[in-house]
């Protein structure tokens, strides 16, 4: 049951987008997000759709995967749709029941919102589909490095993120082992009232915490033994390298952004 969790949803295939510099990918994704929220017109959505489809095609990620990342958020989408439908007032009234009514404005706004959120998810999930978590944290560190001047422990924060990501599969495996061991001693995890089920988690959570702390001490000790002392003067195994394709991608994004701004102002 725990193997279904896909936190690092990296989809390892060979494509232009996969090979792009992760720093650029993050910047482009952020520009894309700002763009989606900047534009208040339908042209924004069209441009956003164009961007998403183009990027997905370049990345060779199957559209099925994009749908997979939208699916878990369907309840939230439904919730916003209903809220917008009922709350926004204006234009022709299509349906009314006591104080609840659905109006023209409401329909338009909710459609706009839902499309916007879908594009948002599709665009951002593309980032995690095409970039491995480790590279992603490297890139975040690189992008945040100016903050080092302000005495922000950027490297340490990135290191913490990397370690956390690295140990997720290990801990999942550990959890499965502990569950099996407690089941072998007759632990009942599948039946009983809610209270009983929560209580049944104790024999799993305590050993899990203990082992997580043990791993943490071991790791700290091992790092200490190798004289690890943070970011100062450290070189990397994987250097982030930017190239022509990154500049081209950034240029296209900026161009699309300009279109959105222009459409906002002119139309």
């Amino acid at each position, binding site marked *: 049951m725990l193997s279904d969790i896909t936190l690092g949803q990296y989809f390892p295939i060979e494509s232009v987008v996969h090979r792009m510099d992760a720093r650029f990918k993050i910047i482009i994704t952020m520009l894309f997000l700002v763009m989606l929220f900047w534009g208040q017109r339908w042209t924004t959505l069209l441009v956003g759709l164009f961007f998403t489809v183009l990027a997905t095609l370049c990345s060779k990620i199957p559209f099925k995967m994009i749908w997979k990342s939208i699916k878990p958020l369907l309840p939230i989408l439904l919730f916003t749709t209903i809220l917008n439908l009922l709350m926004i007032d204006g234009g022709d009234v299509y349906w009314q029941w006591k104080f609840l009514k659905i109006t023209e404005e409401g329909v338009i706004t909710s459609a706009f919102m839902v499309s916007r959120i879908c594009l948002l998810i599709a665009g951002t999930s593309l980032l995690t589909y095409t970039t491995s978590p480790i590279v992603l944290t490297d890139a975040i560190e690189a992008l945040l490095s100016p903050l080092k001047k302000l005495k922000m422990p950027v490297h340490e924060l990135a290191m913490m993120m990397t370690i956390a990501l690295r140990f997720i599969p290990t801990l999942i495996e550990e959890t499965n*082992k502990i569950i099996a*061991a*407690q089941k*072998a*001693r*007759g632990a*009942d995890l599948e039946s009983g009232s809610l209270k009983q089920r929560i209580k049944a988690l104790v024999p799993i959570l305590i050993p899990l915490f203990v082992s997580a702390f043990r791993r943490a001490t071991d790791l700290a000790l091992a790092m200490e033994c190798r004289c690890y002392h943070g970011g100062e003067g450290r070189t990397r195994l994987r250097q982030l390298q930017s190239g022509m394709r990154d500049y081209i991608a950034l240029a296209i994004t900026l161009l699309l952004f300009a279109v959105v701004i222009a459409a906002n102002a002119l139309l």
Partner: protein
Amino acid sequence: MPILETKDLTYTYSIGSPFEKTAVDHMNLQIEEGEFVGIIGHTGSGKSTLMQMMNGLLKPTSGQVLLDGQDIWDKKADRRQVRFRVGLVFQYPEYQLFEQTVYEDIAFGPKNMGLDEKEIDRRVRETAEAVGLREELLQQAPYALSGGQKRRVAIAGVMAMEPNVLILDEPTAGLDPKGRVKILTQLQQYHKRTGCTILLVSHSMEDVARYASKLLVLCQAKAVCYDTPANVFAQSQQLEEMGLDLPQITRVFHKLRERGIAFPEEVYTVKFGAELLKARLEGRDSAC
């Protein structure tokens, strides 16, 4: 009737994905009651998967596991009861300890069985003694104990359910030689006293040779042979082809045989070897 039987037992991981792998391949085994079975095989030969199927933690892809002739995946069968009857001690079981005192941790299994207070108390004290835990340790926190003691607490936790079949996955891994001998000797005594069936997975040929009454050799998801240690170690060549070691004493006697000294093939305990040598040196042996 054998107490534990498998019929065409098969388990395949991640069916239909590129990682598909058959860990147990059509195994047919019959384990008689009261046997002390040593299970040997390489890493990845299917030992752990086989064990987890035997107490119903894993559902076979195909085939059956019969406990006392009853299919444990039968609609009427209660898997939780099966787990009480087939106790499984995982590798490094000390990582499953969670209660505040040793006593309560050993009592976890019996409590889940729904036994009354008095019976639980009897079982906890008896098994603690059986694995050599002193009375005063029972009220201590398990995390305060040494590695070897924790291991024994965890083994006692499964023993306390008084299973008919006790399966142990490398109970001595990572312990010093003294701790190993201690645990195995206690296990042997427990086996003699209760008459339960024991399945012991081990990487040490010396250990299984010394304690087991039968050996099960697994290789690449198949059961290669299931026989007495003497018969298994007599097929030294096949074992070595599978990449499995022989007990050191067996290797010594093979070397002696190669030099033309007529010794039997199946010497696998130091005690037996020493007797043979002594007899030969004193000239009581008539073979040569």
